[in-house]
């Protein structure tokens, strides 16, 4: 019903109109939604003993995501109309964007893991096309390829997990999954395979390096796909299939999430590209959500997904406004922009405050929900080691404040350092770009999510999902706010370290993960493939050609033997016969005397024998 096909070669207005229709339809659906999930099934494949249905499922979680995706997509499309005004292939851009929205809605509404996987891959395709939108730039083409391939690695495991689920339970219907899964979840390996889908799509450790590269795409794309919605699909997946995870699998998820949160946070510290800082902060925040999922805090993770979508999209679109003005992504060439771009400055500040988790902003509420859940979870396991997790998550939210404050300072404070564009030429974007940014900044305020700006306890969000916000210890808010302020102060005062330092390079090169992949995976695979091809040519074909040559040589030998021995024998016997014949013929020479002589000789011999 809400699956719309891409509308190629139409202007952005049409696309935005479609999305607006979708948004209104989703609102209407929210109004109509009955208590029980709605299902829609259509037969897709029927084999003896198996059925795969194209099935869709609409429940409260899905409605929430529908509103989110439509809302952000609409703002991004409106923004794009102005931002990409001079783009030649604009209709193609909007078609890809529609493809993405359609595929994303497919993921949200899918009622079956196989159908979900299909849309999952289509979202990957949309991401590929949009990252590589400026394909003339080799970096963009490479980034698109990297994103698709890394996602393929995760997706292969995800697919295997789905097949395994089908093998064990005989169904991949999400609705049936909850009932069919035995208590304690499915075997850990299945859970981990399914989780791999999320690892790739949500840029978790170790498959996170595609996301910073994906910033090669147009900035609105980064806002929609690579910050607000697509990368959150992994989190949504975890929420959808949460019952399948065994305790061990959940533990692995917690650990991966925590590692990612720290890894992303540290990598964001010393980037000089404005978008890469934001990309790594996305990585870090997604890690936080994944860790929350691992602690069993599904609603907390979804809450953060929702708040993050708004403030991160807001940050990206504001960053777009900055790029629009200064024509560079390098923060070292910005500075002092708060006077030139006051509106962008305030929008950026609000969104950054939400991201950092300052009170009165949405991020504060959702981070508290996650941290509270993590502390509650850590009380469960018998070992105190479990407290490492919430403490590390706390640390990562301190890191967030640190790198955001640094970025804020580099862009908006200090002296203007760009020589390419004169300061007085800097200007705010037009209304089409300004309105979405301001709306998103507005949505980053705590008020929209909870009337009490310091606690999400009575938030509509948890009512809607019929979940309870985990209870937080009283000191948590104080400590985290203190950490955020400390991080922010450090970040703002930070003197830029020299870039040669190993710990700076480690941050900029995100822990040397890409070099590691190049050395340990890409190069060996290419080496092996070349080696195998040589094997193919030389060993296997060697045998084949050798056999062929051998047969030819053998044929020549046979020919020689034929000629000299067999033929020799034949010729020899011919010669012998001829000789004998001549001998015999010489006897029969027609002379009577010799006949008589022969006869007499014969007679004499005969007599001699008798006597």
């Amino acid at each position, binding site marked *: 019903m809400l699956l719309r096909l891409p509308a190629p070669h139409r202007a952005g207005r049409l696309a935005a109109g479609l999305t607006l229709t979708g948004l209104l339809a989703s609102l209407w659906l929210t109004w109509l939604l009955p208590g029980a999930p709605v299902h829609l099934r259509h*037969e*897709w*494949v*029927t*084999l*003896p*003993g*198996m059925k795969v249905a194209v099935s869709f499922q609409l429940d409260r979680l899905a409605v929430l995501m529908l509103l989110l995706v439509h809302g952000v997509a609409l703002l991004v499309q409106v923004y794009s109309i102005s931002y990409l005004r001079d783009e030649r292939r604009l209709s193609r851009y909007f078609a890809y964007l529609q493809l993405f929205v359609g595929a994303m809605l497919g993921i949200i509404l899918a009622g079956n893991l*196989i159908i979900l*996987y*299909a*849309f999952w*891959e*289509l979202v990957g*395709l949309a991401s590929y096309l949009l990252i*590589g939108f400026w*394909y*003339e*730039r*080799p970096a*963009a*083409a*490479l980034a*698109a*390829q990297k994103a*698709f*391939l890394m996602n*393929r*690695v995760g*997706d*292969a*495991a995800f*697919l*295997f997990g789905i*097949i*395994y689920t*089908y*093998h064990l339970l005989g169904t991949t219907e999400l609705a049936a999954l909850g009932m069919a899964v035995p208590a304690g979840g499915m075997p850990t390996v299945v859970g981990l395979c399914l989780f791999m889908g999320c690892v790739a799509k949500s840029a978790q450790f170790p498959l996170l390096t595609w996301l910073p590269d994906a910033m090669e795409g147009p900035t609105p794309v980064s806002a929609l796909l690579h910050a607000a919605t697509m990368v959150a699909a992994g989190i949504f997946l975890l929420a959808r299939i949460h019952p399948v995870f065994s305790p061990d699998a959940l533990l692995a998820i917690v650990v991966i999430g925590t590692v990612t949160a720290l890894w992303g946070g540290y990598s964001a510290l010393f980037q000089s590209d404005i978008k890469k800082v934001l990309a790594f902060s996305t990585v870090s925040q997604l890690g936080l959500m994944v860790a929350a999922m691992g602690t069993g805090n599904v609603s907390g993770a979804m809450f953060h997904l929702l708040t993050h979508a708004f403030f991160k999209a807001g940050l990206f679109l504001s960053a777009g406004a900055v790029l629009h003005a200064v024509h560079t992504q390098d923060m070292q060439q910005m500075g002092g922009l708060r006077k030139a771009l006051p509106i962008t400055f305030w929008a950026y500040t609000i969104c950054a405050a939400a991201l950092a988790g300052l009170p009165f902003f949405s991020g504060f509420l959702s981070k508290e929900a996650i941290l509270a859940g993590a502390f509650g979870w850590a009380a469960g396991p018998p070992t105190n080691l479990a407290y490492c997790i919430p403490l590390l998550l706390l640390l990562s939210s301190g890191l967030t404040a640190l790198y955001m404050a640094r970025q804020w300072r580099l862009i908006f404070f200090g002296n203007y350092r760009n020589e390419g564009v004169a300061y007085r030429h800097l200007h705010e974007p037009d209304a089409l770009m300004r309105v979405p940014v301001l709306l998103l900044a507005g949505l980053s305020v705590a008020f929209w999510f909870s009337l009490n700006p310091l606690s999400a306890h009575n938030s509509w969000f948890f009512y809607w999902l019929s979940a309870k916000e985990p209870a937080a210890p009283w000191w948590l808010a104080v400590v985290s706010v203190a950490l955020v302020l400390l991080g922010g102060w450090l970040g703002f005062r930070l003197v830029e370290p020299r870039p040669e330092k190993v710990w700076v390079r480690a941050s900029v090169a995100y822990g040397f993960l890409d070099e590691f992949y190049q050395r340990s995976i890409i190069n060996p*695979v*290419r080496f*092996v*493939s*070349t080696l*195998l*091809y040589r094997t*193919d040519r030389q060993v*296997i*074909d060697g045998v*084949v050609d050798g056999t*062929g040559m051998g047969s030819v040589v053998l044929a020549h030998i046979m020919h020689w033997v034929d000629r000299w021995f067999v033929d020799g024998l034949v010729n020899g016997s011919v010669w012998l016969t001829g000789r004998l014949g001549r001998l015999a013929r010489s006897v029969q020479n027609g002379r009577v005397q010799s006949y008589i002589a022969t006869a007499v000789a014969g007679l004499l011999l005969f007599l001699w024998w008798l006597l």
Partner: protein
Amino acid sequence: MNIPILTLLIFVPLAGALLVTALPADRPERFRWVALVVAVAEVLLSLMAYTAFDGQLADYQLLEQADWITLPLGNFGIASIDYLVGVDGISLPLVLLSAVVLLAGVVSSWSIRHREKAYFSLYLLLTGTVMGCFMALDFFLFFLFFEFMLLPMYFLIGLWGGLRREYASIKFFLYTLLGSLLILLVMIALYMSVMDPVSTAVASGMVADPAAVTSDIIRLVQLRLANFQLSSAEIVHTFDLRYMADGSNYLPSSFLSLSGETILLGLPTRMLAFWAVFIGFAIKLPIVPLHTWLPDAHVEAPTPVSVVLAGVLLKIGGYGFLRIAWGLFPDGGAEFARPLAVLGVLSILYGGLNALAQADVKKLIAYSSVSHMGFVLLGIASLTSEGINGAIYQMVSHGVLSAMLFLIAGVIYDRTHDRRIDSYRGLIAPMPQYATLTAIAFFGSLGLPGFSGFVGELFTLMGSLQSFWLPGWMTAVATLGIVLAAAYFLWTLQRMFFGPYWSRHEATHSLSDLTNRERWLLIPLGVLALLMGLFPNLIFNLTNASVARWLEKFVVG
């Protein structure tokens, strides 16, 4: 309405071939039109077969039978070879595929400008024999078509091919000939070991008329055969694949009897025979390490011949597995499920890794075929409903997609006579439509959901994990194949089509976008792949019942 559809499918192209030879050589466009009319007729006929076919039934349908050779051999019984054709859910999808791909091949052959008369008569001969191969239900007839297919293919590569065409065509010929030799040996052994219960009932005087033979009588004949109550002069031997597929028709203590007491070279003869036909068809499919003829043949063959080779001829290997190797020797298929699946997984990975190393687009596609055909073997070896249906589906899907891929390679070759990947960059700028269709074919082949490639891989993988015979790690390893496929296709896309435009032949050749003919070849194939991917039941509804019947032989006791 009693149109002999299947016979027409075989003999219309053969008649066309004769017609082409009979026409004077001075107006080559006539040959093209004859070939086109025949190919269109083939598509229509195959669609008629499709509508006449009832997917609910597992039996062979549209049967046509005629006595061909009957020869009493005294103590060796009676030899009988029939003209017997029919289709079931296993062969019909392949017949449909062949008709479509062969039509695409004819349209693509339009650009052949050299000895057209010989070319088109050979092409039509190939068409007829391919159709015969998929529909013959008499082993002898099958073998005849199988061998006759080689002949036109050999000349098509050897006369119209590239620089090393002679090497390639001889390699192709010898490889396949070795395969047919093995198949021939087994065919003879099978013939000696199998009786025709209907004719035997008549010959032994149990009934007077073949029409009066009921299933009870057949059971009685089989019982008497098992108890040595039939004299050898009464036994009518047969090449009928239907009888060969029924274990009760095997002569006790014959060469291939089911008890398996005959030992040759230390192995039961049935197992040997299984491996012999397996190798025979594995060469065709091809399966690593019997695949090296394929890249050479593809690189040297002209575009339409590559299209037919990849789109149709390879599938005869998979069809032979189902109909003959596994179909007649289910014991072998079950006994060796693991090593066979290992060969399938090996092909998937080996083909994929080799594809990564290629510098020539056509070779890359050839190795990707090896990889994709590995899924077919894996699916068949799994002996599950998902696996077998998936394998047939994968064959049809690969037929369409590989035809598209080779046509795509042909487009660039037609322009510059250079297919090396590193000769081009940023082709999307001068050839946007070409780039779009290439991307569609590549994404379809790398298993993007929505296109047919995904369904084939999904179901063969599902089958292999469901399989009673195979361990789970095989599926896990095989899944890596889809990562490799993404890697080699996307890498090619990135290297050839993206970035700033550059071509090694910029000075000499202008690169124009697709012509109308090329567009009309590529778009329908892409649409077909999409349709099958969105509605897989189009294929599965045909294959389902027959595959279920086929699998009855493999019930786990």
